[in-house]
């Protein structure tokens, strides 16, 4: 144990930090700073910058464009990019990418992997269904083989940014007997397929980033199946086991912490800055301490898994990071709404959009997006395996019951 990072790691962190500062679009960074919504170009422009640098797919094998970073380097990369205001890498790179590399055909790899790295191919995720949320084994979307095509019928829900997507990876049921986990197959669907339609789902924060997707006799070539028929459950578990280095969201949390301090310094109560009042100062300090503890825990778990030679990052302990990371960030957004006081009451949907349509907001600029961000933050303890499920997983691991 020692306090300082190695000079090499510290230099790496400075490299990443400088790179983000130098290359990220100031407009995108401003949106992230102000809590406004990103659009596709914010993501894709950043992905192309990362691609040019060779940093778009750190988790992939080197022969497919990976960086061969240590888990700690990957953690630092994720933290620094988030802290620098960069959009997260999404669109399947960290989900379907590793699955294709492990289980895809040479043709699939050639068709998709380079395009993904260039930022030219955006994936939608097709897992959840209205009747199957946390309980994926009960999914009902069915695919029936008809010659050299699967014919897919059913629906998928809670798909983030499906309107941006070119392709979808989806779990569908191809066999109807046996255990419910068996008989599930992983298919790759072209979003332009006839019979495939999407419908936006407006969320409580006013956003429209979620979609439901409907399949009406959608024909999918058999060559778009990943791996074996009926083995989709295995691939899905493989896929969900990736990318746990940054699961606590330390970079995002630090950015919100800085925002909390900005807002607490800007808001006043009878002439005193809130940040100077013991009541608020104590609450901010408590959150900051929780964040420090969580950061230490993240680093510790990554180093421990690295020491054990587990390259994929923490195992079941990742659930601890997910639980605490989401609940801490939710507490931060809750505090932000409290700090804004009466100017948390008005809400103008326009301020969330790219380019404010409506001139200045009615209150201080920092207050305009907070209510929407707060409401949006309620999702993080639900998506990606609800915290109740994470607690079940952990309990099972601890108790063995």
């Amino acid at each position, binding site marked *: 144990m020692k306090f300082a990072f190695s000079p090499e790691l510290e230099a790496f962190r400075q490299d990443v930090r400088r790179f983000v500062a130098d290359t990220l679009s100031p407009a995108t960074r401003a949106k992230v700073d102000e809590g406004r919504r990103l659009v596709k170009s914010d993501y894709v422009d950043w992905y192309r910058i990362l691609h040019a640098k060779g940093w778009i797919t750190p988790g992939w094998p080197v022969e497919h464009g990976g960086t061969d970073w240590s888990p700690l380097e990957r953690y630092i990369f994720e933290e620094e990019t988030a802290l620098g205001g960069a959009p997260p890498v999404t669109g399947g790179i960290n989900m379907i990418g590793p699955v294709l590399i492990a289980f895809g055909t040479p043709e699939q790899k050639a068709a998709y992997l380079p395009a993904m790295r260039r930022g030219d191919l955006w994936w939608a995720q097709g897992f959840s269904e209205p009747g199957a949320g946390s309980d994926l084994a009960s999914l009902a979307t069915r695919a029936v083989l008809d010659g050299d095509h699967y014919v897919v019928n059913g629906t998928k829900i809670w798909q983030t940014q499906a309107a941006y997507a070119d392709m979808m990876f989806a779990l569908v049921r191809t066999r109807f007997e046996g255990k419910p986990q068996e008989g599930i197959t992983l298919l790759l669907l072209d979003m332009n397929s006839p019979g495939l339609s999407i419908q936006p789902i407006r*969320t409580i924060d006013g956003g429209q980033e979620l979609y439901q997707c409907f399949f009406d006799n959608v024909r999918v070539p058999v060559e778009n199946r990943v791996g074996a028929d009926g083995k989709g459950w295995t691939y899905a578990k493989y896929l969900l086991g990736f990318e746990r280095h940054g699961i606590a969201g330390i970079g995002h949390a630090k950015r919100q912490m800085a925002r909390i301090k900005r807002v607490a310094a800007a808001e006043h109560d009878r002439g005193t800055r809130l940040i100077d009042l013991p009541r608020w100062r104590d609450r901010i300090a408590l959150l900051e301490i929780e964040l420090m503890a969580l950061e230490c825990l993240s680093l510790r778990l990554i180093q421990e898994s690295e020491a054990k030679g587990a390259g994929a990052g923490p195992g079941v302990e990742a659930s601890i990071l997910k639980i605490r990371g989401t609940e801490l960030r939710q507490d931060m957004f809750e505090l932000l709404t409290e700090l804004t006081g009466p100017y948390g009451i008005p809400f103008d949907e326009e301020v969330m959009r790219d380019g404010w349509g409506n001139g200045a907001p*009615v209150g201080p600029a920092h207050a305009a997006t907070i*209510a929407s961000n707060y409401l949006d933050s309620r999702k993080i303890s*639900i998506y990606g395996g609800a915290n109740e499920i994470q607690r079940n997983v952990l309990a099972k691991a601890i108790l063995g019951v």
Partner: protein
Amino acid sequence: MDFILNEEQTLLRDMAARFAADARARQEKTPEAPDRRWSRFAELGLLGLTLSEAHGGLGGGGVETMIVAEEMGRQLLTDPFVPTVAVAGPLIAALGEATQQAQLLPALAAGDLVVVPAFLEPEARYDLAQVATTARAEGERVVISGRKAVVLNAPEADLLLVSARASGAHGDPEGLCLYLVPTRTPGVVLRAITTLDGRPAAELTLNAVTVEATARLGPAGAALPAMEQAVDRGVAALTGEAVGAMAALFDLTAEYLRTRKQFGAPIGKFQALQHKLVDMKVALELARSVAAAAAMAVDVADAEVRRRFIAAAKVQVARSGRFIGQAAIQLHGAMGMTDEYGAGRYLKRLVVIGALHGDLAHHLERFAASTEPAGPRH
């Protein structure tokens, strides 16, 4: 302290519940014009609820206001009931001269006049004495200049109740006056906004607005105590509104747990979710009880007793509201995040009420500064 509704109060609750449910149902089909619905409030006598019979009212108090506000909260209505009926009406009745009362109150009760308070200013947070708006006498007239922040229901109002400083330094409790300012007076500028929970509101700018000196409501320079009592009435009504929203959200969540299935069983079979629901129930019942006490306390003469109960109710409602709102979303899972499902609308209402007329920190401080009353128990 008697928590049981008497017969009239029970009738009022049933009537308000029917009315509010009906209003919500109409709104969801073909939205009716706000003023049409406001007329129906008046027809049922709800607008004169807190006024004397001489002014066309029913002579009710804090409890009656809470009863109606709770049903409005349950149905998430956005009409100016709290500002006009809970705050402005009683304030005019308390401070107004006979001619002002005779002119305004019957019109208010009849639904012909919407009056809303405009007390808080952009830099004031929740302090009613932080008034930078000035009132300058010019012969028989008064010139008012300044800004007011987030005035609830202002776009629907005919008349604004504006606090302005006639003398004294910024933050001084003395030197404040209240003026009745028609919204269509030259120099009154409303910037319409919508609140997070869908209510019309406005930022108000007063550019050398000139009114007659007779537009002053109550004594010169000594408006603060009455403003505080008026806001207390508003807070009591809002806590009732919050209880209605919490109760509806609790019912929605319990029903979801009964019917939504995962892993082959209703999710209400899972003990961790059951216990969370129970904690919501506890939070709801605590809020309901102390909100009712605040509604009773609001008519008590002793300002210290009133302040204690009002502050306690607002703090409890802020905490219960956050907890219930957030827990409800979580228990609904992804469904809770959708706008269509509607759980989020209750959370928004609860968040807004938490920030209206003083947040948790503000009322906690007021409570801590108050002293436990001696005298008889309640």
